[in-house]
């Protein structure tokens, strides 16, 4: 594949020759070109839900009848898009290439002379038309569903104070292993995905991070040293230190020291305005 960025489709080289023959009619005018500024292209392409969607767009944009698609033209335009996507190294879903192959095949079959005497010759476009129509009706159905009034957008649940007898609403019981199993499931899912970052890590540091943060609640300066407790021994001190470092790395807390050897203070980065 050539590396150059195609900003405009190349003009057809056939010159005055018919551009395509569709239904026995020669079409000599090339289609309206489909210039799109390259930087807009990426955004633009993200709006397509796949090859069928792109094809529909091409057809609808030109007010073409879905039942009478000028295959040669549409194929050419489609290929231009696909080419552009490849040129800007867009992650091109394989489906787009499959469609390109299908279009090319239909096109070549349409260009073949028709044998009138062969009775059971299908219009090679029929299958494509069927798929486009089928897709389009669900595209429409999706819009319809989106327009249905729904809870939390058009209608809202009522919420009133309830005067009731003294009874406590029973809460669901959870056991520790429910949480473990849930976490195990997450790990499995993450495993199956790529390399999501759940590395092994000491949970105690995580917990200590929460502790340190609670100590800093209310926008107070807290002296660094007061976070450590000798009773916890060496391990405890290390865990606290690592928790503080981790919080600094996450930019959740700040460390302040007025001058060398002065006490070091910690504070939340810009205060907890809303708190809880």
């Amino acid at each position, binding site marked *: 594949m050539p590396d150059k960025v195609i900003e405009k489709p190349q003009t057809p080289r056939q010159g005055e020759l018919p551009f395509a023959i569709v239904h026995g009619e020669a079409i000599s005018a090339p289609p309206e070109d489909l210039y799109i500024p390259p930087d807009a292209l990426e955004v633009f392409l993200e709006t397509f839900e*796949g090859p069928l969607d792109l094809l529909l767009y091409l057809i609808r944009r030109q007010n073409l009848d879905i039942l009478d698609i000028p295959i040669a033209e549409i194929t050419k335009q489609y290929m231009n898009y696909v080419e552009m996507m490849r040129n800007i190294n867009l992650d091109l879903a394989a*489906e787009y290439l499959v469609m390109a192959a299908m279009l090319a095949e239909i096109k070549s079959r349409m260009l073949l002379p028709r044998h009138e005497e062969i009775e059971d010759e299908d219009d090679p476009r029929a*299958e494509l038309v*069927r798929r486009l129509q089928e897709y389009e009706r669900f595209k429409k159905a999706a819009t319809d569903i989106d327009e249905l009034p729904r*809870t939390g957008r058009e209608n*809202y649940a009522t919420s*009133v104070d309830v005067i009731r007898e003294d009874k406590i609403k029973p809460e669901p019981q959870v056991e520790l292993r429910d949480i473990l199993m849930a976490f195990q499931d997450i790990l499995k899912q993450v495993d199956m995905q790529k390399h999501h970052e759940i590395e092994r890590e000491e949970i105690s540091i995580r917990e200590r991070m929460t502790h340190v943060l609670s100590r800093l609640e209310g926008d107070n300066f807290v002296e660094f040293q007061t976070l450590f407790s000798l009773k916890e021994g060496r391990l405890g001190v290390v865990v606290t230190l690592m928790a503080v470092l981790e919080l600094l790395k996450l930019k959740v807390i700040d460390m302040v020291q007025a001058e060398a050897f002065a006490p070091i203070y910690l504070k939340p980065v810009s205060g907890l305005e809303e708190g809880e």
Partner: protein
Amino acid sequence: MQAEKLKNVLEAILISADKPLAIEKLLGFFQEEDLVNRNDLKKALFDLQQSFTNHGFELIETASGYRFQTKEEYKQWVTQHWDEKPSKYSRALLETLALIVYRQPITRAEIEDIRGVAVSSHIIKTLQERDWIRIVGHKEVPGRPSLLGTTRHFLDYFNLKSLDEMPSLSEIQDIDKLYPELDLKMQEELGNIEQENTTEDKLGSSTISETIVDGKEQTQSKQD
């Protein structure tokens, strides 16, 4: 129980409920000595619905029962309780949902076939966690893929009593009409497809039948 009191008790129950309540459930709120039967309830619910027509909220009936909710015409004010805008769903999610609604029970592969692109796992997961869709069975083909269908909660969420109330699917135009010269065999096949489509589109009952539409075969029968 007097009709007037029954109406008030029902109001109090329904306005404080966090989910729609069906008549059966509502009956369970009453003791024997309340002397309330099904018909009393029905009548009271009907009266209640009538009495709230000119209010800021209304009593509606959805798939799982009766619930009070604010009226659509006041959404611009009500929505200001919350900082976040109501969630918007992607086209991919809505198209996937549409296929499950109108073509249930359907497998993921069948959805991909019609949409022409892969369906991401996170869309299926989101729909399941919203409790709009669920696995209703498995298709007896290699791999036994899950068959997906909608839930009652989906209907509640969209203010529907049953799937019948969904907007109907648009018609498919017939390619034959434009090209009468096309061969017979194709007409037959297209005819079949149409027939199948219309029967599916009715969505008669919400009971999911075991009939499985094999979209894949339809698609490929035309390949040569």
